């Protein structure tokens, strides 16, 4: 057992309102400068939708992450370091400008400086920030926000395309949720493995993945290697940049900017202890559906005396161990089992996890009279939610609907359980036990998810 510590995040998508405050505060603090106009360390995607950069989840095309060889070993999908070095001057697997967007501005000055004698109201026209020329805005970091573009764009959603019974999205069947994303600060980062210069490192003490700006030579192999496309190329400095997990803040005990400014109060930060020796094997399990459990199996219970002893032996200080014991991440992933990894099939062992969202019940439910007068039935009707479980499974469990259904059932049961308390009725333990929990756990989970005090989120 080699105990290491990892700063991790869980986002409760069920609470995400898609406001993008996280993106803006992150942008303002970190990438509000030339060369990185198009860079969003944090972005929020509408689902269904193409994501940013568009269709980044289509690894057949972008070749990100790891693949498992027939011998059971992992190799970067785009090829190992040798192959990278051989093709270092030609990287065809890189998203192009049109896959991101051409940053633009407007000739705002014209509004003030328009001379007299004009025949019409002055207007600020869009100008490309790359060429300075007039432009028409045709794509952005968030072009398909809230289902903008409809089927024309959603049809390109790689997750939606995987659904076997894909149907055209219609007004009556519309569904929508938001997916905020930062760098996953993976336990098994394929970006680092892709870097010919060895400029990408994972901090030993907290697992934050950073690009050494001095060593980066701008080969951009990391951009290909990262399946989440969360490494960006600064076209001014010629170096790679990425989400830093706000390490200057984390180091002094402040949450990341995206977390602290999250208006939905849906982000949780915490330390996880894991066994570094088991990461490789876990990432290489044969069946993609086993990756979720495999990753959970490398996490170490910080309350386990053996783990604590091993952590101390690994020079992890006591206050860090305490932090791991208090970590809301541990509770959400391991105790309540409501958080899931994003695209475990990329085999990078991502460390930003998600609680999948509930959604309205579809008409089927109403029509069958399934709910009737009883709100509890409604809360329990996970099969009839608008967002197809398969779609969520495509994001979080490599297509296995089981864990997703389990989470949604636990959330629904929590609502039903708490409703009785809300109305002054007797607690119904059976509502907890049907989802494998106790009433006390229901209360604890409710406190963490609903009341979610600042000091309990971070």
């Amino acid at each position, binding site marked *: 057992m080699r105990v290491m510590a990892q700063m991790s995040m869980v986002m409760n998508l069920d609470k995400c309102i898609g406001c*993008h405050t996280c993106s803006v505060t992150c942008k303002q603090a970190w990438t509000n400068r030339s060369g990185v106009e198009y860079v969003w360390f944090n972005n929020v995607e509408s689902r269904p939708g193409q994501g940013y950069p568009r269709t980044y989840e289509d690894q057949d095309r972008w070749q990100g992450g790891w693949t498992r060889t027939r011998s059971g070993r992992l190799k970067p999908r785009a090829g190992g370091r040798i192959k990278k070095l051989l093709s270092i001057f030609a990287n065809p697997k890189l998203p192009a400008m049109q896959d991101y967007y051409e940053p633009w501005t407007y000739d705002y000055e014209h509004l003030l400086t328009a*001379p007299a004698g004009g025949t019409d109201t002055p207007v600020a026209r869009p100008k490309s920030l790359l060429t300075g020329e007039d432009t028409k805005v045709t794509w952005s970091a968030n072009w398909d926000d809230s289902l903008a573009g409809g089927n024309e764009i959603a049809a390109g959603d790689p997750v939606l395309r995987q659904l076997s019974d894909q149907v055209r999205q219609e007004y009556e069947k519309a569904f929508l949720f938001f997916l905020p994303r930062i760098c996953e600060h993976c336990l098994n980062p394929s970006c680092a493995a892709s870097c010919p210069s060895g400029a990408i490192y994972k901090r030993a003490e907290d697992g934050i993945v950073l690009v050494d700006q001095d060593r980066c030579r701008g080969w951009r192999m990391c951009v290909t290697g990262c399946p989440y496309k969360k490494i960006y190329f600064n076209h001014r400095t010629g170096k790679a940049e990425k989400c830093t997990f706000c390490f200057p803040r984390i180091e002094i005990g402040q949450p990341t900017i995206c977390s602290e400014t999250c208006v939905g109060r849906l982000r949780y930060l915490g330390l996880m202890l894991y066994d570094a020796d088991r990461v490789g094997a876990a990432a290489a399990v044969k069946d993609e559906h086993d990756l979720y459990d495999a990753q959970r199996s490398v996490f170490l219970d910080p309350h386990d005396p053996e783990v604590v002893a091993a952590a101390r032996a690994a020079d992890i200080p006591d206050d860090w161990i305490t932090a791991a014991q208090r970590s809301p991440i541990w509770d959400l992933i391991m105790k309540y089992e409501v958080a899931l990894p994003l695209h475990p099939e990329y085999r990078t062992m991502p460390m930003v996890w998600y609680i999948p969202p509930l959604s309205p019940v579809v008409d089927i439910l109403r029509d069958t009279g399934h709910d009737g007068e009883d709100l509890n039935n409604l809360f329990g009707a996970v099969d009839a939610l608008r967002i197809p479980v398969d779609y969520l499974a495509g994001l979080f469990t490599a297509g296995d609907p089981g864990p997703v259904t389990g989470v949604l059932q636990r959330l629904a049961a929590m609502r039903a359980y708490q409703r009785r308390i809300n109305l002054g009725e007797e607690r119904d333990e059976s509502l907890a036990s049907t989802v494998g929990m106790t009433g006390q756990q229901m209360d604890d989970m409710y406190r963490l998810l609903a009341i979610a005090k*600042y000091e309990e989120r971070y």
Partner: protein
Amino acid sequence: MAGAAEGAGRALLAVGGLVRRAEVSADGRTLHQIGGREADAFYRDRWSYDKVVRSTHGVNCTGSCSWKVYVKDGIITWEQQQTDYPSVGADRPEYEPRGCPRGAAFSWYTYSPTRVRYPYARGVLVEMFREAKARLGGDPVAAWADIQADPERRRRYQRARGKGGLVRVSWDEAQEIVAAAHVHTIARHGPDRVAGFSPIPAMSMVSHAIGARFLSLIGGSMLSFYDWYADLPVASPQMFGDQTDVPESGDWWDASYLVMWGSNVPVTRTPDAHWMAEARYRGQKVVVVSPDYADNVKFADEWLPAQPGTDGALAMAMGHVILKEFFVDRSTPRFADYVSRFTDLPYLITLEPVEGGGHRPGKFVTAADLGEAGAEAAFRPVVWDTVTDAPAVPNGSLGDRFGEAGAGRWNLDLGAIVPRLGCAGGAAVQVALPRFDNDTPELMTRGVPTVRVAGRLVTTVYDLMLAQYGVSRPGLPGVWPSGYDDPAVPYTPAWQEPITGVPAAAVARIAREFADNAERSGGRSMILMGAGTNHWFHSDTTYRAMLALTTLTGCQGVNGGGWAHYVGQEKCRPVTGWSHLAFALDWVRPPRQMIGTAFWYLHTDQWRYDRYSADVLASPHAKGEFTGRHTADLLAKSARLGWMPSMPTFDRNPLDLAEEARAADPDDPAGYVARELADGRLGFACADPDAERNWPRVLTVWRANLLGSSAKGNEYFLRHLLGTDASLRARETEPDKRPRDVVWHDEAPEGKLDLLLSLDFRMTSTTLFSDVVLPAATWYEKHDLNTTDMHPFIHAFTPAISPPWQTRTDFDAFHGIAKVFSELAGPRLGVREDLVAAPLLHDTPDAMATPGGVVRDWKTGEAPAVPGRTMPKFVVVERDYGAVAAKLGALGPLLDKLGTTTKAVTVDVKPEIEFLKKVNGTVRGGVADGRPRLDTDIRACEAILALAGTTNGRVATEGFEFLERRTGRKLADLSAEHEGKQIRFADCQSRPVPVITSPEWSGSEHGGRRYSPFTINVERLKPWHTLTGRQHFYLDHDWMQELGEELPVFRPPLDMHKLFGEPRLGGNGELELTVRYLTPHSKWSIHSEYQDNLIMLTLSRGGPTMWMSEADAAKIGVTDNEWIEAVNRNGVVVCRAVVTHKMPEGTVYMYHAQERVIDVPKAETNGRRGGIHNSLTRLLIKPSHLIGGYAQLSFAFNYLGPTGNQRDEVTVIRRRSQEVEY
């Protein structure tokens, strides 16, 4: 949660305690750590800063979020939300971290290229002014007069408005032009020809107050905004006698059933949305009513996709279900008790016989009908007491509110009276009730039980409600629905299905759940409503139908229950402090306050394009009050009866009129004015708004973007008010439809306004058209105060940097203008008397001017012309024009004498004045000698805080003691816990501070509970400010009867084909489509603010767009992001299409306040610059909003007035050439 940020993240802090140096991992596979930490330096530097300052965002948005503004090297770098709100309870979520992406992008403006850095003026005007001034001996006022006297020069600079040509001028010159225009206008035309527009004072109270105060001191007209924005839910004054009082968002947590109805919370209440998300985990059920798959549907358990504008039908059908199942089929004790005590349901209504047999609902039976003497008797309505089995007059009505006799009796304590809910068993009589769901209004005949009282045939409001909703009881005659599945008769679930598109079964089920939850939870069912239901012509009826649901089920006045109206609502919590400063009530009363909608309707000449007579809106029962009447006629009537204010007021200068009146009748100038009016020698300006002498001349807009945001009928503004080019295509009213009492000029005026002045920090549609633009400080560059109704805290603006370049705070700008104005005005105007016409005011005895709501017009001889009864009050006030600047900067002596008054509660504030003398210091010399200084923004903040009950426990407690004497109920304990607490400005700077429970509002925060409106009414039996003192289902004013809106009723959207000849909805032939045109609030802006912000533009589509369904797009061959044009009689819009399946067919959304400054090409239609979202809209005034002088239907500023609704509009859309020109 003391200092969440510090206490925060203890776990993280632990992590932060140690940063270990690198360790190279032995694992060759992935875990690399190479090199030192020198490479991190860039990010560490990036994160460093010099200071963090607390501020917020000052207008438009009502979020009131406290922000940390970061400053490095004297430059504002970015902002993040504060997290230090005081805790709202151990078992609840907190308010941190309030904010949204728009607010987070605000600092972009500070140094952006759209920042107004210097004063600007229209070049052509500046040249004229300089030339005239030089020619006229350097007299700026003479120079301004000279230009205005020359129609050619005047038109020349007016026509240049909005076409570039702004030039830099100095502050001195800008102030001189502005001051000269004011002095000239006051002298030549009158002070009421000067108008000011600035909305939402709560969001930066001092910035608002300083301009309003200047205008009030000179006698200018302040224009209302809440009604003009159509955000005022008129149903609130109608039902509650209150402007709008709503729960803080933390109270959503208390609801166990939440209907979000026309309010897209994640988008429009971003900082509050988490409460909704979190309350679901308590088992709150969430239902969304929205025509599109809006962002909030994601959080719903069920979605009712009602067609736009049909919400009233849905609500009426829900009411049908609730009345049937919870009142008639079985009596629900909680509901029956609640409606008996807190609503007008048990009150008796006279039934009036109608020609051809049958009856119609008439007036409330009052004590006067029972023979009681005294003026108040007509305002003391009557119930039937089951104990004595006789009529009885409960306490708490308007008749008890002001007279000596009512002292100690104005309360809701029924004593021994047990009101009978309904006359069941009495003789049945048929009443005819109007329905408007078909093309032509019809009558339905339904029976009600009756009794005889004082010789009248009467029934109760409850019986009428059951008849109106179609809830039958055995033995009653009439046409009743056969059941929920009866589609033919209002108001069954099946009846609403073809109208709304919502399945009948779903409606019945949701209504049942809503009421069942209310019963089981003690009233914790909530309806969260907004612009989607409130911006329609008939929104007052829609809201009354929705509010019927919360009131019938006993949810109003309960934490977690009732209505939660959130659009444009604000809460200037220290309202007394703000209002007395803003309207200069410390120096002179009354101020000139004008209903914005009527002002714009007349002065932008939209009335000239009304092509219908008001009787198209009337009930089949109508007596003909509206027949052949143009809306402008009704407006004129409302003005002359003193119902609503009217500015400019008379057809002459009120200074001259005052002089004339004083000369003619020194002791009774008001009587003289009344006689002159009655004899027709003096006229109201609104009866001839196009006559040159009646135009408004000077308009100042600050903290607002009138022409880019709220100006419904934008093209009418441009043509008639400003006199520049416009894309208006409407036809004027045909001769037979023109007003009778309002003069028609064959040629419509263009360019009424002499001066448009704006103060802003960015270039907007308003600054582009302004004659003078003054550079304003942003919200990170000034001191001010901020509150909202969404949370219970007051907090501060603090400058992160000094106003850069030549920008100034609004406070300093108006002081500068006032100084130059006073210098110029002193010798020219001196001390003058001014005749102010004040309307009959709510919360005063004026509200008893119209017994029975029976309209009598002095003009037609129906009543004598009596000021303050049948016409406005005429008050002569003194204006010392040379002393305006001095008065602006000092707290005046009127407060010592009169104290402060808010909602009829008067407080002696002498201790506060003494306190302010010490804190602010006193003025030395001049008219304000010895008065507390208000010469800095911080001192103005201190005055607001000291004078208001919400921020000064002594004032709150004294106010409650005043109310105790009137109500005879215990109240002062509500604030006694904070009697010694006085919030100071520095307190608001250090952390948001919870406010104190105060009689200024209707809810209690006693003991730290969440704010919910009307809890004081329900728990302490303090009456609502209505006729009965209870919540009103029934409104008996003559005009309500004319409209057939005595009771909740469904009125569909206006038919623009019938009224204006627009094409019918649907296809118009090839590649053209007529659709409903809606302008909901946007995700990427707060009104027009942030529409031009590069960060927001980058996250959205980078310019104006219109959302449409895939089906509609296909019909006209449009694909996503293609250029389209939208055209109707009001104007033209050019924008790009957003095609999506989340929109319903037949409706397009152009999100609110997309203006023409960013990426708007020229239109194919007419070759001119495409318009703003409001180029396709215009104003339409509903007559019932003009009622005044009668109980809760009495004017107060932003409390009651015609709404500037715009959602009934339609437009033609088509794909245009994809080659665009700018």
